[in-house]
């Protein structure tokens, strides 16, 4: 501005230098953090692109001297590793669990949010108690129940015990409580059934909440390890995390192979994350899901 004196500009510049210093040190720290986060991933990718002979060389190289896809070729052509099969196993379990969990959570959440009935508070309190019981504490009887149901060593054994999620119900109730009742009453006047209200009025308004629940159910299922480890015994029925530990135990010192296998397990979820990154982060802050 024309009226600014040189003195003013002086103090302004001083302030800027101080600000520049704090800003640049902030970026330095953040870039360092980015390196710490990304270098392990990069190193694993680079390792999977090295030939086996280069892996065992001392001192180890960071960038491959010879670039090769041999490790991936070995995995893809290994008759013991029908990869498509394992992807399908993981996808099958995850998709079923996501849709069933969304359905039961929204339906029960809707009822707890919008209806009055006898024993409601007690039943809801019972759901809250379930929140405090970690899976690891009940996994032994859960397994014994599965044995009685004849679902051991079956992919259904990974789906059926977890079709209702106490946290999901709790969360969906919170969201549905915020939806006004007027639309529901209008639908009733138009002759809609109660389930029709749930299906046509409530569900369509829950996009972001359902997306958050879906994303975290999917992630939890896709990365789940302990329960499949207990339930699944047949090789062909393994999910991806089980496949990876099995492969790791078979080829423990062939790091080119185990790192390529790790990448193959990581890749789908990283791609999904790259596309829906904002939804992931929003979902976490919205739900406190872990």
């Amino acid at each position, binding site marked *: 501005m024309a009226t600014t004196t040189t003195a003013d500009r002086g103090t302004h510049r001083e302030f800027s230098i101080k600000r520049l210093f704090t800003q640049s040190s902030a970026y330095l720290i953040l870039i360092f953090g980015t390196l710490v986060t990304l270098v392990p991933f990069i190193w694993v990718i680079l390792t999977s692109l090295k030939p086996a002979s280069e892996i065992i060389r001392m001192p180890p190289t960071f960038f491959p001297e010879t670039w090769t896809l041999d490790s991936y070729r070995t995995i893809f052509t290994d008759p013991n590793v029908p990869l498509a099969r394992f992807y399908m196993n993981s996808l099958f379990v995850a998709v079923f669990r996501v849709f069933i969990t969304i359905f*039961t959570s929204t339906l029960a959440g809707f009822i707890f949010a919008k209806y009055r009935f006898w024993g409601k508070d007690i039943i809801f309190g019972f759901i809250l108690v379930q929140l405090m019981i970690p899976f690891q504490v009940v996994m032994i009887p859960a397994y014994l129940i599965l044995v009685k149901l004849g679902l051991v060593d079956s992919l259904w054994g990974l789906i059926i015990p977890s079709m209702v999620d106490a946290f999901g119900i709790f969360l969906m109730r919170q969201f549905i409580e915020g939806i006004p009742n007027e639309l529901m009453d209008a639908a009733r006047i138009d002759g809609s059934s109660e389930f029709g209200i749930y299906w046509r009025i409530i569900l369509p308004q829950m996009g972001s909440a359902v997306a958050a629940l879906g994303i975290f159910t999917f992630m939890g299922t896709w990365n789940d390890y302990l329960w499949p480890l207990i339930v699944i015994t047949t090789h062909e029925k393994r999910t991806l*995390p089980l496949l990876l530990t099995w492969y790791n135990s078979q080829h423990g010192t062939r790091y080119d192979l185990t790192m390529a296998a790790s990448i193959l397990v990581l890749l789908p979820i990283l791609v999904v994350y790259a596309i829906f990154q904002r939804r992931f982060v929003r979902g976490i802050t919205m739900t406190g899901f872990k």
Partner: protein
Amino acid sequence: MEQPNVLAAPTKGKRKFSPLERVKNKFVTRSLTPIMAYMLFFSLLPMVWAVILGFFDYSPIRAGGGFLGLGGVNPFVGLENYQAMFADTQPARVFRSAVVNTIMFAFLVLPINLAITLPLAVIIESIHERFKGFFRAVYFMPTISSAVAVAVMWGYIFNPQQGLLNSIIRAVGLTPPKAWLTDPTAVYFGVPLAMIAVIIAYIWQDFGYNLVIFIAALQGIPKELQDAARVDGANAWHTFWRITLPLLKPTLLFVIVLTMLSSFQVFVIFDVMTNGGPRNQTTPLVMSIYENAFRYQHMGWAAAISMVLFLMILVVTIIEFKFLRTDWEY
């Protein structure tokens, strides 16, 4: 709250259900009953069963008589499983070290995690809007990654010969440890080296979660409060300690409890990276439950251990409810 309903028939003195109320009740009963029955069967029943199992010497390989296979060859033993925890036997020693390992792990992970995530969140909040999303997205990447893949990755990074970490340590002219994950004699300040290695990998994977929570909480604090403090002459440091941190208290407590609970339940990363070794130095409680129940088939004993884990989690949860109440809002 239910709205007063225009369709509800006028009640004639007696407490009767209107047609609409009857329709609603039918819907509630039909929808909720299966869901609650399911919860009873797959949540409450296992919990009760786990408590009961803890009082039995139960093994699924013995064909037990009676209800749920309890009794007969799987006899009721009262508190013997719990008394055995204090005995001078090998399983009891492994159990006790599992308790120590789990608590040690949780109490090391928590402060390190907070010391990284809270300042990092403040720094991310201080930079230009355009770059926030990028850093947040990058830092969150390990969190969504498969824990098994991360553990396999870090097992290789800690490899003493070809591993990345030792290569870096050698490159800067220091002498790296001979073995990160397998040397039982390497203990620093009472913490086994293998435990330290697992903690590093675990924090690398897990820190993005708390970071995102903190960033969201910081964004929720009205800027006017910090600006007012600045006008009153407080520097950035003071503003953080006196204004921002007290306002973060609810978030901080939430994060502390969640971090503790998930550290208590840790399994995958230990199972893949160290498999509990060397000499059970890195066996957490969940691994102890898993091994006893599904490898040795000592399910009664394993159920008793799971009750100890439950108790630990309960204590943390109760402390949470006591402290999570905050006295003021903004």
